[in-house]
């Protein structure tokens, strides 16, 4: 048996199956997590740290391969080379690149960024990978010993089975939830040339945001989601003044299922909830929007509801006709479904990774964390949120020229009394 054949492989998890099929000529579903350090990154040490970490997380440090009926992941034989940063994050990941390695490690000055194709893992799994890469790097670079806490694991240990399981299959319910849902308002604008992506980072003081969220008796995620929906409402109103012609504002909020089910998987294990506002019903205050989101999340983020939603996806995967269909046919069907349904149900995604915690010894070397989602295939925006230390980083990514949504988001925030500091990659 050749060395390549001995490498570990895994079927794609239930959520991951759609992403390879949904890829387009210049779009693939990739997201980024990065950490900015106090000192410039030493690439040699980082390569050495990466070589250790890829062995520990074989389902994340993988490449995407084709079988006759399904795609699958195969662990990479050797760690990928370290890449220098481009002028924008999340540059297009081609099929050829994914066949070699479906994640990238990118360095710019003090920053280490990892970009993952979404079939490998979700935000939580990616964060564990990045944390352990940082821990290994800091240990090798500064000769320190990082305790095994806050997501740091023993990198020399063999991968644990629980971390590589497809938890969707375990928690799927008996009854399936209908996927019928109304379409959302679609933003549009003049596209950027050469696939350039505009990044605008809003830096907010954690204390201010949490205090404000508590004033409304809600959480940081609900508060920021409400601000985003209010910004979307204002933007649509500016573009389409006629109330009757306005469409529903819907925000896709990913839900980490590890908080609902006892799972330690590092593969995809997230679902979503989509709160919506019908602007034709009248003007909504921020408080009313918060109520809508809060109650929607309360009703849907339960084991029973999520199990029924997962069941619908798992049943599709188990369908005999779909299973025996050759991969090109499956791709055609899944791509058609994704294009006609998948992305029309929300205006954009707001994904909050939460507060990132490190062991104290690591924390003094890290100054900042970022979480950036790629734009949707047919919609120009997406938004990733992460909190670290005393700052919330809200990263807007956009493939159109006009920063209209960011402007409205800024003003809605300012109306609530929170002032953001802005940073961007403007050309």
């Amino acid at each position, binding site marked *: 048996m050749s060395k390549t054949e001995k490498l570990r492989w895994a079927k794609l998890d239930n959520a991951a199956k759609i992403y390879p099929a949904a890829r387009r*000529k*210049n779009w693939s579903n990739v997201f980024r997590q990065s950490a900015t350090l106090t000192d410039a990154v030493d690439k040699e040490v980082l390569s050495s740290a990466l070589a250790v970490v890829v062995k520990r997380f074989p389902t994340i440090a993988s490449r995407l391969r084709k079988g006759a009926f399904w795609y699958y992941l195969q662990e990479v034989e050797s760690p990928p080379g370290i890449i*220098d*940063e*481009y*002028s*924008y*994050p999340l*540059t*297009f990941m*081609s099929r050829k690149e994914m066949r070699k390695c479906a994640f990238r490690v990118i360095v*710019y*000055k*003090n920053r280490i960024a990892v970009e993952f194709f979404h079939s490998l893992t979700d935000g939580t799994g990616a964060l564990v990978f990045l944390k352990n890469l940082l821990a290994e790097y800091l240990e090798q670079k500064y000769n320190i010993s990082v305790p095994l806490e806050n997501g740091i694991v023993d990198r020399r240990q063999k991968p644990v089975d629980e971390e590589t399981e497809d938890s969707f299959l375990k928690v799927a319910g008996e009854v399936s939830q209908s996927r019928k849902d109304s379409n959302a308002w679609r933003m549009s604008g003049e596209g950027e040339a*050469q*696939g*350039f992506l*505009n*990044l*605008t*980072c809003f*830096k907010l003081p954690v204390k201010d945001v949490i205090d404000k969220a508590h004033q409304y008796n809600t959480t940081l995620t609900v508060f920021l989601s409400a601000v985003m929906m209010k910004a979307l409402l204002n933007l649509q109103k500016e573009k389409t003044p006629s109330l009757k012609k306005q469409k529903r504002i819907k925000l896709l909020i990913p839900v980490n299922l590890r908080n609902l089910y006892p799972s330690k998987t590092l593969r995809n294990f997230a679902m979503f909830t989509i709160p919506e506002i019908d602007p034709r019903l009248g003007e909504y205050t921020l408080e009313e929007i918060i109520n809508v989101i809060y109650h929607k999340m309360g009703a849907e983020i339960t084991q029973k509801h999520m199990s029924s939603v997962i069941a619908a996806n798992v049943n599709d995967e188990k369908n005999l006709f779909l299973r025996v269909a050759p991969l090109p046919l499956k791709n055609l069907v899944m791509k058609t479904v994704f294009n006609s349904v998948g992305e029309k149900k929300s205006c954009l995604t707001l994904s909050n990774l939460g507060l990132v915690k490190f062991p104290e010894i690591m924390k003094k070397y890290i100054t900042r964390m970022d979480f950036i989602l790629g734009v949707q295939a047919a919609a120009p925006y997406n938004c990733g949120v992460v909190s670290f230390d005393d700052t919330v980083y809200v990263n807007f990514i956009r493939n159109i020229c006009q*920063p209209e949504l*960011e*402007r409205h988001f*800024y003003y809605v925030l300012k109306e609530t009394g929170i*002032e*953001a*500091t*802005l*940073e*961007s*990659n*403007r*050309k």
Partner: protein
Amino acid sequence: MYCINCGAKLESTEKICPLCDTKVHCPDVTETKEPLYPAGRIPKLKHRSNTFNGAVIIMFLIPVAVSFLADFHYDRNLSWFGYVLGALILGYITFALPLWFEKPNPVIFTPCAFAGVTVYLCYINFITSGDWFLTFAFPVTGGFCVISTAVVTLMRYLKKGKLYIWGGAFALTGAFVALIEFLISITFRISFTGWSLYPFAVLVLLGGLLFYLAINKSAREIMERKLFF
């Protein structure tokens, strides 16, 4: 520092306000922090695989080679090969040539395809020593070229009124079918039997229906509700 136009609070690295595109001017800021991303490092995007386009050319070349050999082998002379070659070139211009372009504009490629048909017709006429039916073929090609190009152009550049465009296209095609029968009767000296009235009636009715749906919103909604998929 703050944007002098919109008042947004900016990092000291910002040169242009990300919210309103105003150039930032703040002589007091002497801090030399690194920008968030390096400037001028844009990856080159490979838009289309030349392998695919090469494979398409080979697909066209195979029947060219086979028909050439068959024609030549039969009587050591080329007789019908020109027709096959012309048809294949026409097929390539129509279906494969746009693949070489990043964003092929159908407003350009549609008349190009009809121009190819016209050249092919001229070739056939030349080979048959002027004995071919150009008085019929030219007006038919020209008519379809005008209707197709008009539909493609309007669909591309008008954001609204798709039902009107297709309604008009159906009605025009109906009228054009009647003209085709007239041209057939002149060119081939066949009496005018009026068969074209059937497609004319159907196409004009369809066109009228689309116009009605375009005007009547409630009828349009009913159709959408009944026929969506």
